Structures are given as C-alpha cells and as structure tokens.
C-alpha cells in the first residue's frame, strides 16, 4: 500500500484532522504569547499598550514565583515518590494469592474514579478537619492535640490527598507489569539462592523499571498542573505555602485580573513543562530501548 499515490491520498485524507488539531493548539498558544507582551489589566482599562518583557520581569521577580516553583517541585516530586513506591508495594501485595482477590483489586482502583474536587473536599471536611474530621476526633479521643492539617502542614496534606488519587493508577500499571513477570524466572532465582530481598532487587525491580518510567512520565504531565485540590482546600495558602505555578497563574489572571501577567506565567509554565518533557523523554527513551 506504500505506493506514491496511496501515500498522497493518505496525506490528503488526514490533513483535515491535522489542521484542526494544529489550529486548536496554535490559536490559543499564539494568543497567550501575544497577551503576554501587553499591559492588559481588566481593572485599569487604559488601552492595551505593548510593553515588551515587562510582564515576564514582574512575574519572575515576584517573591511568590520562587515559592510557587519550589512548591511545584515539592508537589510533583513528593507525589511521584509516594505513588511509585506505594504502587510497587501494592502491586506486590495484590499479586499474592488471597481471599476475595477480585473485589480487593477493584477497591484498590476505586479512588481513581473520584473527581479531584470531590476527593479533596471529602478529605478536607471528613478526615482532616481538626474539629469534625476523623483524624481530629481520633486525636482528641486519645487525648492528643488535633493536628490542623491545612494550617500546620498544608503542602504535605495536599501531597497526601493527590497521592491518594494517583496511587491506584501507579498500582494498576505496576500490577499489570508484575503479572507479566515469568514465574519461572523467580523460581530460577530461588534455586540460584536468591533471598526474597535479592529476588525483588535483581529480578522484580528491573522487570518493573519500564512500567515505573511510564508511571513517572504520565503522572508528571498531570501533576505539573494540579489545581482543583489546591483551590478547594487551601486556596494556595496560608500565604503562598501551597501555591504552585498553575495556581499562581490563576491568581494573577483571574483574581488580580491581570491578563498580561497571567499569560506571561502561562508561557513560562509551557516552557518549563517542555523542558521536563524533553528530559523525561530522554530518560525513558533510554529505558525503553534496553
């Protein structure tokens, strides 16, 4: 089918969808870039003069930018750490023969189906509220001072909530990988004198390496833009303690009505995301080839 004519026909037939997709991406992107060079504030309608890099300058030098960068890194890193390690542990546990296996497996996946806003609200009001939450009640019941999660450890609390949402995803992918491990390999390692720890380290973990990189890649892409969980729990606070880049952009453009500044932040976020993506692709490309 790879004749010249068929290739030309193929190109012509996929062109509408390619053009549509490209337009879909290019138009908002160019508008964002365009706005980022304008003084464009909805509160002070003084026309929209071209101001060059000014928006970028103010966005980057704002102290909350540095805080947002660090928070973004901590969020993504922390959640990746918890979900991959937790995912491996859950995958190992789910692989064990046990009673009610099918039901347990479905239950483990369940949190993934809960909407981010809903799960964040449930955690905030039913679990982590110092007065009415279960954790607070438990602490008071045992005579301890209840922890005010979103006041004292806000970032950690959000990391915990988002990890809870993403753990099932990591578990699912890793568990599938786990099941494709040849049992004879494990038996051979057992005959070769490998203890359980060595079998995990030398056989299971290398086998899971590929799945782990896939989990990291996909999660990173989504975790760079965590928003709903922050909005419904802490609103980025206290102060800027839980403001990540996405939230900072939201604050500038929709709370301070500064469209130019928000767009500049958006462009920076796009560049950062691409750097991360290239970096990850390299890493994963290496891992997938092997």
């Amino acid at each position, binding site marked *: 089918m790879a004749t010249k004519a068929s290739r030309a026909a193929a190109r012509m037939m996929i062109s509408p969808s390619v053009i549509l997709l490209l337009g879909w991406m290019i138009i908002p992107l160019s508008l964002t870039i365009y706005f980022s060079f304008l003084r464009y504030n909805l509160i002070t309608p003084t026309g929209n003069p071209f101001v060059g890099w000014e928006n970028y300058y103010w966005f980057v030098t704002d102290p909350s930018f540095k805080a947002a960068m660090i928070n973004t890194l901590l969020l993504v890193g922390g959640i990746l750490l918890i979900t991959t390690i937790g995912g491996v542990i859950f995958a190992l546990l789910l692989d064990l023969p046990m009673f009610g296996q099918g039901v347990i497996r479905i239950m483990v996946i369940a949190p993934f189906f809960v909407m981010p806003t809903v799960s964040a609200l449930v955690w905030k009001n039913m679990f982590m509220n110092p007065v009415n939450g279960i954790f607070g009640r438990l602490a008071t019941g045992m005579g301890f001072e209840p922890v005010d999660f979103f006041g004292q450890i806000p970032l950690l609390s959000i990391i915990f909530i988002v990890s809870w949402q993403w753990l099932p995803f990591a578990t699912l992918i890793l568990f599938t990988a786990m099941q494709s491990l040849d049992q004879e390999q494990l038996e051979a390692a057992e005959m*070769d004198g490998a203890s359980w720890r060595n079998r995990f380290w*030398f056989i299971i973990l290398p086998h899971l390496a590929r799945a782990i990189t896939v989990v990291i890649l996909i999660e990173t892409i989504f975790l760079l833009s965590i928003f709903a969980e922050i909005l419904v729990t802490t609103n980025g606070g206290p102060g800027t303690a839980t403001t990540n880049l996405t939230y900072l952009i939201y604050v500038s453009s929709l709370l301070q009505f500064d469209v130019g500044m928000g767009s500049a932040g958006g462009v920076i976020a796009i560049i950062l995301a691409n750097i991360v993506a290239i970096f990850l692709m390299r890493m994963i490309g290496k891992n997938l080839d092997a």
Partner: protein
Amino acid sequence: MGRIQLEQVSKSFGELQVIPPLDLEIEDGEFVVFVGPSGCGKSTLLRLIAGLEDVTSGQVLIDGTDATDIPPAKRGLAMVFQSYALYPHMSVRKNIAFPLRMAGMDEAERDRRVQNAADVLNLTDYLDRKPAQLSGGQRQRVAIGRAIVREPAAFLFDEPLSNLDAALRVGMRIEISELHQRLGTTMIYVTHDQVEAMTMADKIVVLQSGVIEQVGSPLELYRRPQNRFVAGFIGSPKMNFVSGEAAKPYAAESIGVRPEHLQISSAEGAWKGVIGVSEHLGSDTFFHVLETGLAESITIRADGEVALNRGDTVYLTPEPDKIHRFDARGRRIE
C-alpha cells in the same frame, strides 16, 4: 555426591491427587530420565525434588539426609527450565554468575568459574550479550552454564530441548550426554520424547498419571516392558497389539509385537493383510498393513529396498521369541 531417594512421596493440588505415594531411588552419578505423556506429573515430580513444590506427604532424601523441609537453594541442586528462565536484563556473564553472586563468592573466583563454564559450553564470544540477542540453542547453553557453575550435587532438567528444532535437539542431546560423562554428576531429565529417553538415560522412569509404571535401563524397558503402557510408550514406531482370537494360541489376553520383529512376505505367513500407507525413510520403510482382522492397522518395519505398493496382499510373521504377552489387566506374562 548426589544420591536422591523419594519415600512414599505424594502430591495433591487441593482435592486433586496428581502423584499418589511413590518410592524412587536415584544413585549418585546416574542419568535418570522421567518420561511419560503430557500431564502425567513429570514436572511436578521434578519440582518436588527441587523443593519448588511442597510434598503433600512422604520424604525426599538427598545423600541420606531428609531434605523435605530444606528450601530449594539449600538443597544443592540446579535446575534448567523449559523456558530457560534467563534474566533478560542481565548479560550472559551476569546470568551465569548470578548464583555465585548470591552465594557471596568473591569476584575473581566468580570470573574464573564463569570463564570455565563459557569455555565448556562454547559461550566465550557471547558473554557480553543479553539473552534476547541469542539463538535458542545458545540460550539453552547459558541456562546450563548457570546450572554448572554452582557445582551442584545434581542437575534437574525440565524438557530443556523441547523449544529447539530437530537438528539442534540432536546436537544438544549429545552435548548434555557428554557433559554428564565429564562431570559425572547426577542428572534428572524430564522429557516426553521417548527417543531422548532411550538415547540419554542410564535409567528410565516411565510415568503415567503420576504412577511409576516401570523403572529400568533403556534396553530393559525395550526388551521386557512390564505392561502394555510401557510396551506401547517405549520404541518407535509403536508396538503392535493384537488381542482376542489371534492371542489365544499364545495363552495371553493380548500380545504385542514390535514393527521390527515382524517378517513381511508376499507369499506366505501367519497373518494376511493389504498394504496401506508406506513411509519411506531411505534405510527403512514402514508399511501400515490393513485388513488383517487383528487390529485396525499393523505397522511393520522392512528394509528400504523392499518394493511393495498400496493394495498389495502381504503376509506377516512375528518372530516367535520377540512376542510380548499380556494378561487381562495389561501386565506382562513371562
């Protein structure tokens, strides 16, 4: 040393008894082949010896000591799996060195042993490749290499050649036999191929549904099969069985004659029939003789030069001293 004894060993998976209690002795240095049809429990028996499966009852003794509760790694046995079970992310060198590394051996000694094994198995050029970059035969040799570096008391092979093509299989068969002669270590070898069993074994164990039907040297099994199952399983092409009227003169419920122990003639003989399919191998020809009234078809082996065609009427005569007689329960009558 590698003397292995099974005493009243049985195995059940839940309700299903796969291996009823059985006894078996394997002497040090012996090449023992477990042979039997698919699903008869050969692999299970091997895994019981290896310790990968717990016995339901009975004892496994290795060199006279009870090994029933000893974990697989401590039994001093090495196993070669049907799928080879190489570690895909490790090079050939690391694969072979893995058991030594697990035993905490120092690196110099490890390298020396890996090098030795590679020399023996012609793997020197492939040491830095990954298993995926090897052919089936090479992978097989790596799996064997991983087993021999440990200098085990006995080797366990589970159908190691079944994934190889016919020519390679013959070659590896000879290599494994040579390895056995050189090392002099006990080997237990599982196969469902009776040719492998006949050519390699010092002692064959024929299994059916988990029951040992007969234990003996290849020629013993060929000459004096204890029952109809063994008689039919050992030897190729299969032994012909005749029952009813034709067996009466021999005072047996049924008799068996191997294809190579039948004389064929176009003039006269004991049994009359018509040639059906003939298989020409060059040196020999196998004729399937129909319409004898004794069995659906009787196979006979004739010299490659014998010229007979489909539809020809022929007469068959069994060699009188090569007839095997069986009673109503299929057991041999002396």
